[in-house]
């Protein structure tokens, strides 16, 4: 039964039907939730003892940086599924994630630069965390242009997926860069192993903003995947009948 469910869901047609029903409501819901998290973080939390009000960009910088990495991991999983099981839907989702990942990564770098000016006294330094995140951004751009450069889209999916698997090594490097080398960027405030070094009054809105941003971005991924399905299967009868 599980196998049957999987096969049904994994066909572009049924994914499209489900996404059509839930995609937009999910997106709107998490958009409002993220908006609420920002209002909470910007207006209803105390300033930081050291950084004052400038720390508040954390409610945008951390969700964006987190998603920049998570999206690449998701893309690696869907790419592996595509390569192993030849599941077309997985390739469509992979391809749809790349532009969203590029924008989110750019936003992470941009918000980090804005944060850096008042706190560090510089908007750009070539430390390991910042440089590896820039590499992530360039990889997203590279993946987008690789896929666009193939006339034969089935071939494009294959090369795209292989490149994603090669690039995913960068993710643990970004994550551990602040521990492996000396950096200007501070180390993680929230870890799995120890107590967060961020006060609860700031931690709760931060967690809230991260969860809301995850939902928001996955909502976008679903809508973008729908688009890709229509583009790639436009000659199939079920698409013509929509």
């Amino acid at each position, binding site marked *: 039964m599980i196998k049957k469910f999987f096969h049904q869901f994994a066909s572009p047609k049924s994914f499209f039907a489900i996404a059509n029903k839930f995609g937009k409501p999910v997106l709107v819901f998490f958009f409002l939730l993220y908006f609420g998290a920002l209002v909470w973080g910007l207006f209803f939390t105390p300033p*930081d*003892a*050291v950084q004052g009000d400038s720390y508040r960009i954390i409610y945008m910088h951390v969700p964006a940086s987190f998603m920049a990495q998570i999206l690449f991991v998701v893309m690696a999983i869907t790419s592996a599924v595509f390569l*192993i099981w030849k599941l077309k839907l997985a390739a469509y989702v992979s391809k749809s994630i790349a532009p969203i990942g590029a924008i989110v990564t750019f936003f992470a770098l941009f918000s980090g630069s804005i944060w850096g000016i008042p706190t*560090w*006294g510089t908007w750009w330094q070539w430390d390991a965390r910042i440089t590896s995140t820039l590499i992530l951004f360039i990889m997203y751009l590279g993946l987008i242009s690789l896929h666009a450069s193939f006339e034969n889209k089935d071939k494009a999916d294959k090369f795209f997926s292989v490149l994603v698997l090669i690039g995913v090594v960068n993710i643990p490097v970004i994550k551990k860069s602040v521990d492996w*080398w000396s950096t200007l960027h501070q180390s993680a405030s929230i870890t799995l192993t120890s107590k967060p070094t*961020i006060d609860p*009054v*700031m931690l709760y809105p931060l967690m809230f903003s991260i969860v809301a941003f995850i939902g928001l971005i996955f909502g976008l991924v679903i809508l973008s995947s729908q688009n890709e399905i229509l583009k790639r299967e436009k000659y199939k009868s079920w698409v013509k009948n929509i």
Partner: protein
Amino acid sequence: MKKDRKKRLFGVLLIIGSSCLGIGLILYALNSNLDYFLTPSELKQSDENVVLSANTRVKLGGMVKKDSFFINENKVNFEVTDFEDSIKVIYEGLLPDLFKEGKGIVVLGKYIDGIFYADEVFAKHDENYMPPNLELN
């Protein structure tokens, strides 16, 4: 699992594995070259090994030593310490807002005869966030 799928799974693992190995070897070879700054004891050591010529710009990082800060003839003087060794820094210019004794700092400049002449100063804030009233307690 079907035979061809197993083969493809093996291929996927091989791609990830070889990529890990390649990047791992590169990072291992680069090792401390990827460090953003040197600590005072590292800088003193590299000075003894005559790695630095007088014109090499380096980055020195650590904590601003307590009670070492003073201003003399429009120049800022303070010491950077890693709690083992400390180096005297002279700097002319604006300091970032977060500059404070006992807090993290990175200075960029030249190290000549035991004194660090900084061109740029960056504040390195830590990963602790808390409201102002809690810090006093």
